[in-house]
């Protein structure tokens, strides 16, 4: 028996790989689409509750996070640009900035989540509903939330949570790319991995562009 290099690996088809990656991005998009659909349906049937609950979210924080993500998208574009022009150093710095911005996004998000948890807006409330009014999880005198608001917070946490998960994955991927760039296996001639990482990052951005108004603004 003999072992052979794979023929496909010899003549690598960059455009084909990109095409495949775009298809993968669509599957990510459809994953979120299911959430958006659930959101849309419940919003249409619990409009008032959704508006009330949305008011409790801090528009300022949301807007800041939006700007952070948009900026990180810009640095990502510039990083790829730099790499393609051979400015490896600049590319690396820009990528680091992107990672830092992603981290900043997560930090802000976690503060926001923490505040909501404290206010018993998520699991506690839902558990309270599950267990009835006398639930020990509710502080005495605390009122039950209407189901529409429970749905809102449930969706809020799950959707922003899934989004945050994507940010984390993107961040880890960027760290790997950074490492490979230092080792030289991603370079001016072979920018493909950074390019795809960038596409992924931009998609995460696109999804946030829709999440932002739906949760923070349409109140």
């Amino acid at each position, binding site marked *: 028996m003999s072992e052979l290099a794979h023929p496909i690996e010899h003549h690598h088809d960059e455009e084909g790989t990109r095409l495949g990656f775009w298809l993968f991005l669509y599957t990510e998009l459809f994953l979120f689409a299911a959430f958006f659909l659930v959101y849309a349906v419940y919003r249409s049937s619990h409009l008032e509750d959704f508006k009330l609950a949305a008011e409790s979210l801090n528009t300022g924080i949301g807007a800041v996070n939006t*700007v952070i993500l948009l900026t990180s998208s*810009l640095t990502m574009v*510039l990083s790829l640009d730099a790499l393609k*022009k051979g400015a490896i150093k600049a590319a690396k710095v820009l990528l680091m900035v992107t990672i830092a911005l992603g981290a900043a996004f997560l930090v802000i998000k976690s503060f926001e989540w923490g505040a909501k948890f404290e206010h018993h807006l998520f699991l506690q409330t839902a558990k309270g509903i599950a267990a009835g009014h006398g639930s020990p999880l509710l502080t005495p005198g605390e009122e039950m939330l209407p189901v529409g608001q429970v749905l809102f917070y449930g969706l809020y946490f799950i959707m922003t949570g899934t989004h945050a998960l994507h940010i984390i994955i993107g961040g880890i991927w960027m760290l790997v790319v950074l490492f490979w760039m230092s080792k030289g296996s991603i370079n001016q001639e072979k920018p493909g991995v950074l390019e795809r990482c960038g596409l992924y990052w931009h*998609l995460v*951005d696109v999804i946030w562009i829709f999440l932002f*108004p739906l949760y923070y*603004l349409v109140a």
Partner: protein
Amino acid sequence: MNTHEQTQSFRLPILVFAGLIVLTVLTVLLSGLDVGNMGALLIAMSLASIKASLVLYYFMHLNHEPLIFKLFLGVAFLTLLVIFVLTFSDYSFRVIA
């Protein structure tokens, strides 16, 4: 690659970025308008779509990709649209209470 192209390629992303920021501000400002539920939703979603298209087209370099990439995008969006419209063919016509 000549220098002219290089400056170009830096300028474009920054311009697009500026556009995105402006649109974000606009989204926040316009959300204060009193145009009813559907109106607000429509404004917010159209602005978000414009922003998303900017990202797709310039940041994700769809502008440099061959036709097939755009066709695929079209198929994906059409399918999304179908899913939403048909689901609401149920929910918009439910008899409630």
